[in-house]
């Protein structure tokens, strides 16, 4: 999102010249959602028909109706809701810790140039280390405990936030910073009134990315380590051969993912919107 906004902002356009209307309009409001609905319906129909052909065995891919049935039964189970709760707890807690740590570390590192210079290479080294490499360590230290999940989730999500906060703090408009200096705002004042507002939309992007990554790692921990949650439910269903149940659970994780995406994007858009309207006035 950010890339797009920035790239679009610099294009040369003549004052008052034609061709200004670059924005895309959705034609006749309802067409797009209806087409999308048609696509989803098509997917369901395909999943219903495909297992009944010789192409795919129903043992591996149950018809959509079977999956729906399994989902219905799932929703009536207490175990399912407990698992969902476990997953959400791991996700939410991990994300919260990662965001808090990432923001604090980002502000501290970002506001001291020397610190930024010293830590840059270390961050570049640690960031791409796959969180899953920590799985054996987590198992040894914490077993199937919630802390296992948190170790993986926090490690993966922390870097997303930190890197965005740092990028945001660096994006400060030099004019705004000079203005702040000329009014003799101290370091803290500059951080509070100049750097943080600039960084906010970046932070929101970081939170959005971290939210997605956190879900992936929560499910991974449950699936591989066996920590309680949806991932573990899937593993259990798979080993016991309850195929429709596997698909129903996968669908649930997908819906969970979509919900998290939509929420995160909505929050991010609000932050960005606020940011841009402030900038335009300023």
């Amino acid at each position, binding site marked *: 999102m950010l*890339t*797009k906004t*920035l*790239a679009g*902002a*610099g*294009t040369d356009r003549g004052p008052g010249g034609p*061709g200004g209307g*670059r924005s895309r309009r959705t034609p006749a409001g309802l*067409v*797009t959602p209806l*087409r*999308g*609905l048609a*696509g989803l319906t*098509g*997917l369901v129909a395909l999943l219903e028909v495909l297992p009944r052909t010789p192409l795919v065995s129903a*043992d*591996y*891919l149950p018809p959509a109706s079977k999956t729906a049935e399994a989902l219905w039964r799932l929703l009536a189970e207490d175990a399912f809701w407990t698992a969902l709760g476990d997953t959400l707890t791991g996700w939410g807690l991990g994300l919260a810790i990662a965001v808090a740590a990432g923001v604090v570390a980002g502000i501290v590192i970002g506001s001291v140039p020397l610190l930024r*210079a*010293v830590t*840059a*290479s*270390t961050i570049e080294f640690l*960031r*791409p*280390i*796959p*969180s*899953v*490499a920590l*799985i*054996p*360590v987590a*198992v*040894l*230290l914490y077993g199937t405990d919630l802390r296992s999940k948190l170790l993986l989730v926090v490690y993966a999500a922390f870097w997303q936030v930190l890197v965005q906060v740092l990028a945001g703090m660096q994006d400060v408009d030099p004019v705004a910073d000079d203005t702040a200096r000329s009014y003799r705002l101290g370091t803290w004042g500059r951080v509070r009134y100049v750097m943080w507002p600039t960084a906010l939309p970046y932070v929101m992007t970081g939170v959005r990315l971290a939210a997605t990554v956190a879900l*992936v790692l*929560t*499910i*991974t921990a449950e*699936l*591989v380590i066996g920590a309680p949650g949806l*991932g573990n439910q*899937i593993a259990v269903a*798979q080993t016991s051969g309850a*195929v429709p149940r*596997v*698909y129903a*659970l*996968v669908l649930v*994780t*997908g*819906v*969970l*993912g*979509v919900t*998290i*995406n939509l929420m995160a994007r909505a929050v991010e858009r609000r932050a960005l919107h606020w940011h841009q309207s402030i900038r335009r006035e300023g």
Partner: protein
Amino acid sequence: MTRTTSTVLTLVRRALLALGLPAVLFAVWWFATAGSTDFYVPPLSTVLGRFGEVWTGERLLSDVVPSLARLAAGYLLAVVAGVGIGLVVGTSRVVRDVLEPVLELFRAIPPPVLVPVIMLFAGIGDTMKVIVIVSGCIWPILLNTVEGVRAVDEVLSDTCRSYGITGPSRLWHLTLRSASPQIVTGMRQALSIAIILMVISEMFAASNGLGFTIVQFQRSFAIPEMWSGVLLLGLLGFVLSLLFRFAENRVLAWYHGLRRAQRNP
């Protein structure tokens, strides 16, 4: 001060900044664990000693190479398929409208849950792992390609039309190149997903590979060996991201230049 000495000083300064903290952290780890009797946290010297033994001999061929081959095969297939399908979807408004929610749903499914599902179809062999990697990391590439194709500039598109640049030439010189920044972003996201999927598909069900071996070490309480595996995975992630950045800087040099030019007009 002469020019050469000042360049040398700058270089020294940069080297100090880049290597200072890693050296300190390494030293801290080294000395903090030096006399460690904690079974789970062996001395770093022991871990590094084992690293050489474990990962250079036979295991390099039997575990590291198969893992990397599966990673490469899955990732490259995902790139080709993702860009290809993305081009088709992105060019047609109707196709895009119809498929976008479906694709968003697939993208939102946490890729690791695909491992048990794909095991149903493809067993636990190499095919399964490659399919898992493809089906997990195709989505960010595909959706970013769609986004990139959609954002092709209209003036540039008109320019191509009026000069008769059509067909494959247009596809290469206009569509792909102008979508390349987004495609690369998708590929970067996909790379980290691919590594995750490589490791956990091997942890879940395999008879060789990095993920498998590391879990074996952990289960048999071969702790220094396990730590050396964790280090190797970390190193792998770092090296791959370095290679990626190197390639990106070559392919997208124009884009980074353009962005800089736009920021400081």
